[in-house]
């Protein structure tokens, strides 16, 4: 894992849950929630959990106004770029509109080799159900963030309906897109309930739904 | 002796007697709209939008499909109709209280989007229907039931000039202010309306004809004195003429 992981993708692809899972599983120093798109179900609502795990939460609402929908970008978001001791995950809002916040930090990024810019894909999201749509999305994300995508995360799922075949179908379509773009699948996230012994592309991780559980 | 009819009531209006006061110029303006639509053969493909004010009943008078709008909202209603029925001819018929006050946002944004509609704007510088209150277009010094000492600039600002204002909106295409106080001006006003509906037929965008109008009852004058008062007082503040003609590449007249 590189020192900094930035998660992007379509909204509802699972970025926030993955960000929390990565932060906890890899004992990162900070989770930076830069979601200016969604008003709810943002990784910042797992503040207590993150802090209990010693993870600093930096987020895009003005302090003490967590319920607001102001697209405020905390200056603290630049810390991991500036301080090379920090290991962090960035959680962007969905689509190219969510990815454009990265422009705010462009001038602080010293070493691009330390950054993984990963696109989270769930092929059961209608906007990313085909390789050509995924490829087009990558182009848009790169254009608005001005950062090169370095890989994919296969998070293909239908929540409680997920089974092995869905993960495999996701991998098949994602490999088609990844092959065209010459990019790796860096992680495959597998729903907690799917007890599988199969190995999927990249690092295989279990996905615990911290946010969904918290709400309903 | 053989005769030839040189002027007859237009088929663009229904047979219902108009609900306007004697000598009110609404009737003349209605007639012009009806004549233009009839002569252009557009009547049976037109939707009129009646507004709130004295012309609230105008849906009874225009001999075409009509929808009645809430106060000020006629341009939004027209937008809804035109967007789903782009081949229909769509016009709103609005007074100055309706268009220049409560409906300011709707008229500016309809023009701004370049909606391909025609607006018939009747400016008589007063709220007629509700009993002669001050309108945004009421002249300084003009007495109304809510400016009993005469409109005062310090309290209420200066009268709004809508044609001039809309000429600054990039999306508007054709704007002309006309009057109907005598046959010569009536002819000119009819030409302006023809032009406005031409603009719509050619899908060139937003057109508005502002009519200087009268309100004999609320102004407290005879119909003929009202016409003279409009000529002497309204027209100097609201000069007649074309304020924008973007069909000629004139974007900011």
């Amino acid at each position, binding site marked *: 894992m590189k020192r900094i992981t930035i998660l992007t993708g379509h909204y509802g692809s699972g970025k926030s849950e993955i960000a929390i899972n990565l932060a906890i599983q890899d004992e990162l120093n900070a989770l930076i929630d830069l979601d200016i798109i969604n008003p709810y179900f943002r990784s910042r609502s797992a503040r207590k959990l993150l802090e209990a795990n010693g993870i600093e939460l930096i987020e895009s609402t003005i302090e003490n106004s967590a319920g607001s929908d102001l697209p405020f970008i905390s200056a603290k978001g630049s810390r991991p770029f500036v301080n090379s001791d920090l290991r962090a995950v960035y959680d962007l809002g969905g689509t190219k509109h969510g990815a454009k916040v990265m422009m705010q930090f462009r001038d602080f990024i010293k070493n691009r080799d330390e950054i993984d810019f990963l696109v989270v894909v769930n092929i059961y999201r209608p906007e990313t159900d085909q390789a050509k749509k995924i490829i087009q999305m990558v182009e848009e994300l790169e254009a608005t963030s001005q950062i090169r995508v370095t890989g994919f995360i296969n998070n293909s799922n239908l929540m409680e309906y997920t089974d092995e075949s869905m993960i495999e179908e996701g991998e098949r379509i994602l490999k088609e897109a990844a092959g065209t773009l010459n990019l790796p699948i860096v992680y495959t996230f597998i729903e907690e309930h799917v007890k599988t012994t199969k190995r999927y592309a990249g690092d295989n991780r279990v996905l615990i739904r911290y946010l969904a559980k918290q709400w309903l | *002796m*053989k*005769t*030839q*009819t*040189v*002027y*007859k*009531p*237009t088929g663009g*209006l229904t047979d219902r*007697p*108009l609900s*306007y*006061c*004697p*000598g*009110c*110029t*609404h*009737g*003349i303006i*209605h*007639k012009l709209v009806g004549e233009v639509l009839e002569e252009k053969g557009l009547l049976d493909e037109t939707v009129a939008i009646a507004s709130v004010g004295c012309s609230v009943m105008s849906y009874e008078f225009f001999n075409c499909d009509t929808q009645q709008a809430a106060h000020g909202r006629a341009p939004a209603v027209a937008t809804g109709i035109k967007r789903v029925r782009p081949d229909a001819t769509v016009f709103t018929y609005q007074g100055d209280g309706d268009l220049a006050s409560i409906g300011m946002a709707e008229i500016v944004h309809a023009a701004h989007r370049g909606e391909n509609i025609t607006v018939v704007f009747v400016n008589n510088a007063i709220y007629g229907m509700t009993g002669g209150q001050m309108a945004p277009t009421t002249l300084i010094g003009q007495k109304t039931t809510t400016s009993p000492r005469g409109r005062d600039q310090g309290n209420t600002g200066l009268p709004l000039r809508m044609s001039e204002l809309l000429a600054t909106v990039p999306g508007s295409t054709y704007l002309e202010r006309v009057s*109907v106080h*005598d*046959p010569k001006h*009536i*002819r000119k006003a009819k030409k302006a309306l023809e032009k406005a509906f031409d603009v719509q037929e050619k899908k060139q965008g937003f057109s508005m004809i502002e009519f200087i109008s009268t309100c*004999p009852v609320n102004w407290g004058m*005879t*119909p*003929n004195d009202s*016409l003279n008062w409009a000529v002497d007082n309204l027209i100097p503040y609201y000069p007649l003429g074309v304020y924008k003609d973007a069909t000629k590449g004139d974007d900011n007249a």
Partner: protein
Amino acid sequence: MAKGRIIIEQDLCKGCELCVYQCPVHILELDTSTTNAKGYTPLIVNDPEKCIACSFCAMICPDSVITVERFVKE
């Protein structure tokens, strides 16, 4: 010799007099001896022979009560 004539829908006339002022040959007036169905004093032509069929009266009439005919030679 009249060049034409006007036909007035007496019962629709609101007696506003706008036509009276616009008539270039001054042949229109209100009949103040009577009222029509609506209660207005209706329009009459006091000297039809002078009508020039100019249509000014009809053009200015807000209530479309006037039809204008021109005499044509056979």
